[in-house]
């Protein structure tokens, strides 16, 4: 099915199942420990041997010698694979550095060996018996020190409309400020893990991967196999946030280990290895220049961002939202990429917008104060309903103003004292902050297969993944709505490369695109059912397990009496995303308390108001948003991969050193979804919320801290040491 015109009325609009808060259909499995993740597949590999990965002890250089003899002789060891004996390996299209390093080492903790042994304890012990001699080379590890050498990475890296320099020079009110965001780690709870099983020259990987089809292709590329010989299966994934978009070393090393040991091998990356071995969100340095008239209208907007990556890598696209979020006749953006020899940077939840809004939305707060305007009114004055760079291109829907106003009412914004450091509650300095949320709505081709069985039940099969997002449930809701069945009559099978290729989980495109693919397949199934029953498909009504036309009504199951009905289709998109700018919007409100003596920051209240098209399952969509708010709170207050600039690695490479929010850090969170449908996005009229929820949160926290204390922190995370010497006199 090709989606080329805005959606009209369709079966989803009945909203008998879709759009209703629905408990996850995989909930009973997940809450009883019965959902088996990659490392737990005793059912498929009861005799698996254990792999343990050794990471490089230098950031850049060469392996001069590797002595495996003692390790090889250790009890239980079945095989040791290194770059020397692995055979010729390719590199995945989505990977920047090799997944098995040596003799060249590209980054710290790049995998250099995998030990396969009968038991985990034996593999671990033997890995520590490998002796490696390295020649360390000089590397580049300090982003701030490489700004002069940063290059323009792509055609889209520079944009300009009007004459920014002139408008900025002429503006009566200006802001020129520089912000820094540190490297972040996905730190999903399930480590990267895989079980590899060879059957002749065919490889099956039971793994933890967000994008099954990308993964299948890149495993094939890396191992020099035909794509058809590779199968990936990921029915349950313990979180990803972008960290599992790509094939990582666990999958490749499990496959190589299994080939060498002639046994199925299971392997999970050790937690302290993950932070440097896998990908991370790159640090940025961002300069914002804003110019406005006394009326608060922006006349000049410039956003420049610097980030670094390994050779062949890409920039953190932190300026992209600034091209779309606010009006302003004269604008400029620039992205610059420095060469860094730190671990590979790549996508993490809302790549671009998440760090970009951390800077832009503080700048908007600072500018509002300079103008003497309320920060919400300042944003509203600068709202735009068209793409500011391409005035002929409207937004498909844009309810930012309603999000801000609605949130202001709900949160009690009018009680905010705009004068910083003026509200006190016992020992706490109290402040309130706001930020806009913005994330583009991307659409991707997505396919599904649906089966109608003779008992009247429907099964959906697609390689879509559920990384905690609730895919199982919204896909079941979609099929139930389309076929006129109760939810219990639908089963959903996900995450297997034998199923039709879906949009996968990333870029908050998964919910809308994958359900639209199921919609397309179900439309085809409805036609097949009608044909079997001798009914007119165009006028047939599917409800309560029956198909009705005029006075005739037949059970749905009857269509499969002669054998299971199986159809497959996909949703493909025309140019609606070019004719219209499709984005999601929101407003984040945060109240903080800052200890007047110690500077300790505590979140007291959080609210998000989101406008993101039709919300398919308000229960799980709300969870997506509160989860993203939590991750945003982490970015605001604690998350920072500390770079050792001499040796070139992330020092705090575990979950105690890299702090993420815990229960005690997070207050009750509130989420409001505006009632919205976007017929331009897909037949589902939905968008995504999983990334929108993190966009702007950190800035709202930083702005609240400023309101509480009068201390403006422009270098994340906002920690008490950055407040202490500037806090108001303690009284």
């Amino acid at each position: 099915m090709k989606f080329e015109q805005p959606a009209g009325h369709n079966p989803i609009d009945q909203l008998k199942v879709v759009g209703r808060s629905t408990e996850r259909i995989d909930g009973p499995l997940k809450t009883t420990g019965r959902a088996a993740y990659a490392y737990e597949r005793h059912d498929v590999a009861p005799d698996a041997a254990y792999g343990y990965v050794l990471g490089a002890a230098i950031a850049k250089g060469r392996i001069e010698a590797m002595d495996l003899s003692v390790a090889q002789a250790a009890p239980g060891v079945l095989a040791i694979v290194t770059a020397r004996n692995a055979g010729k390996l390719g590199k995945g299209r989505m990977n920047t550095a090799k997944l098995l390093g040596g003799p060249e080492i590209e980054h710290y903790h790049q995998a250099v060996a995998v030990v396969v042994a009968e038991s985990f304890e034996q593999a671990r012990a033997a890995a520590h018996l490998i002796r490696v001699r390295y020649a360390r080379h000089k590397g580049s590890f300090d982003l701030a020190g490489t700004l002069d050498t940063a290059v323009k990475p792509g055609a889209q890296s520079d944009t300009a409309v009007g004459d920014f320099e002139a408008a900025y020079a002429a503006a009566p009110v200006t802001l020129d400020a520089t912000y820094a965001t540190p490297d972040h780690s996905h730190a999903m709870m399930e480590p990267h893990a895989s079980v590899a099983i060879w059957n002749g020259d065919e490889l099956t990987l039971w793994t933890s991967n967000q994008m099954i089809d990308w993964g299948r292709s890149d495993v094939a590329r890396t191992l020099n196999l035909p794509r058809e010989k590779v199968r990936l299966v990921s029915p349950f994934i313990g979180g990803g946030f972008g960290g599992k978009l790509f094939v990582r070393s666990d999958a490749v090393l499990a496959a190589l280990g299994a080939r060498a040991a002639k046994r199925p091998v299971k392997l999970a990356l050790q937690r302290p290895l993950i932070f440097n071995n896998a990908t991370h969100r790159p640090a940025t340095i961002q300069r914002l220049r804003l110019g406005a008239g006394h009326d608060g209208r922006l006349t000049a907007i410039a956003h420049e961002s610097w980030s670094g990556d390994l050779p062949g890598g890409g920039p953190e696209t932190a300026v992209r939202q600034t091209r779309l979020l606010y009006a302003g006749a004269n604008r400029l953006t620039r992205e610059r990429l420095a060469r860094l020899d730190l671990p590979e940077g790549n996508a993490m939840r809302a790549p671009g917008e998440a760090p970009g809004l951390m800077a832009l939305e503080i700048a908007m707060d600072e500018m509002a104060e300079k103008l003497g305007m309320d920060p919400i009114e300042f944003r509203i004055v600068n709202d735009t309903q068209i793409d500011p760079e391409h005035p002929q291109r409207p937004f498909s829907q844009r309810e930012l103003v309603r999000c801000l106003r609605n949130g202001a009412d709900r949160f009690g914004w009018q009680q905010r004292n705009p004068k910083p450091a003026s509200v006190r509650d016992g020992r706490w300095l109290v402040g309130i902050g706001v930020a806009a949320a913005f994330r583009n709505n991307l659409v991707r081709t997505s396919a599904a297969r649906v089966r109608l069985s003779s008992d009247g039940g429907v099964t959906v099969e697609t390689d879509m993944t559920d990384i905690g997002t609730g895919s199982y449930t919204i896909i079941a809701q979609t099929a139930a709505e389309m076929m006129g069945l109760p939810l219990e009559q639908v089963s959903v099978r996900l995450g297997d490369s034998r199923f039709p290729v879906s949009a996968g989980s990333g870029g908050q495109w998964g919910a809308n695109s994958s359900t639209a693919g199921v919609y397309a397949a179900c439309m085809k199934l409805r036609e097949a059912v009608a044909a079997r029953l001798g009914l007119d498909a165009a006028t047939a009504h599917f409800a309560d397990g029956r198909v009705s036309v005029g006075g005739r009504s037949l059970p749905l199951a009857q269509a499969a009496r002669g054998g299971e009905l199986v159809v497959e289709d996909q949703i493909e998109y025309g140019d609606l995303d070019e004719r219209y700018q499709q984005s999601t919007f929101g407003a984040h409100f945060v109240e903080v308390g800052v200890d007047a003596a110690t500077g300790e920051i505590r979140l007291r209240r959080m609210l998000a108001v989101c406008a993101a098209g039709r919300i398919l399952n308000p229960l799980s969509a709300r969870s997506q948003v509160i989860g993203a708010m939590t991750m945003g709170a982490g970015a605001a207050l604690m998350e920072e991969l500390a770079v050792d600039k001499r040796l070139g690695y992330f020092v705090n490479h575990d979950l105690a050193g890299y702090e993420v929010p815990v229960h005690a850090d997070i207050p009750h969170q509130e989420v409001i979804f505006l009632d919205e449908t976007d017929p331009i996005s897909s037949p589902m009229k939905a968008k995504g919320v999983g990334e929108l929820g993190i966009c702007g949160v950190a800035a709202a926290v930083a702005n609240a801290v400023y309101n509480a204390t009068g201390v403006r922190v422009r270098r994340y995370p906002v920690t008490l040491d950055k407040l202490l010497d500037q806090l108001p006199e303690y009284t």
Partner: protein
Amino acid sequence: MDAFKEFRLTRRGLLRAGAVSVAAVAAPEVAAAPTATGRPPSHASIKLRVNGKEQELTLDTRTTLLDALREHLRLTGPKKGCDHGQCGACTVIADGRRINSCLTLAVMRDGADITTIEGLGQPGHLHAMQAAFVKHDGYQCGYCTSGQICSAVATLDEIRQGVPSHVTTDLNIPPPLTAAELRERMSGNICRCGAYSNIVEAITEVAGSAT
């Protein structure tokens, strides 16, 4: 900082620096020389009572309780998130108290009575806490969920038994069942999906109906 100076030495110079200082200055460049040779692992037999069932295991003594449950008894409930006591995904209830099962060797728990998430309830017969997690959507990816639920069940027991926490202000009265108490006591269980707000609601509901 002499140690830093050493990094500027050439590798040849580093080797010349001599064997006596190798351990101190060369650790980042040269993996420590093997200290253990291939000594065969020691094994021990232990008994555990897991979810009401007696189990007898002969284990490599280095095996954690977590791996005994996951790899030897093949339970899929207890999760390995970090394997060193930082995330809480492996939380099980041992002799009535919640522990990080990755931080204890199985042999240290010979004779213990262990309850894992599987022992609390099954699909179709959910424990009240499991049902509350489903109702309040107190999870997303599900990987921390076993640990959160075991921890939550044990937390309510601790409060009932009067065990104080870091945020308990008055030690002369039983600790109150407040959101602040729950958040403090549950902080050893990380949920990166960020379901905390919902988890606290789920626990509060169970606590309310249990008291």
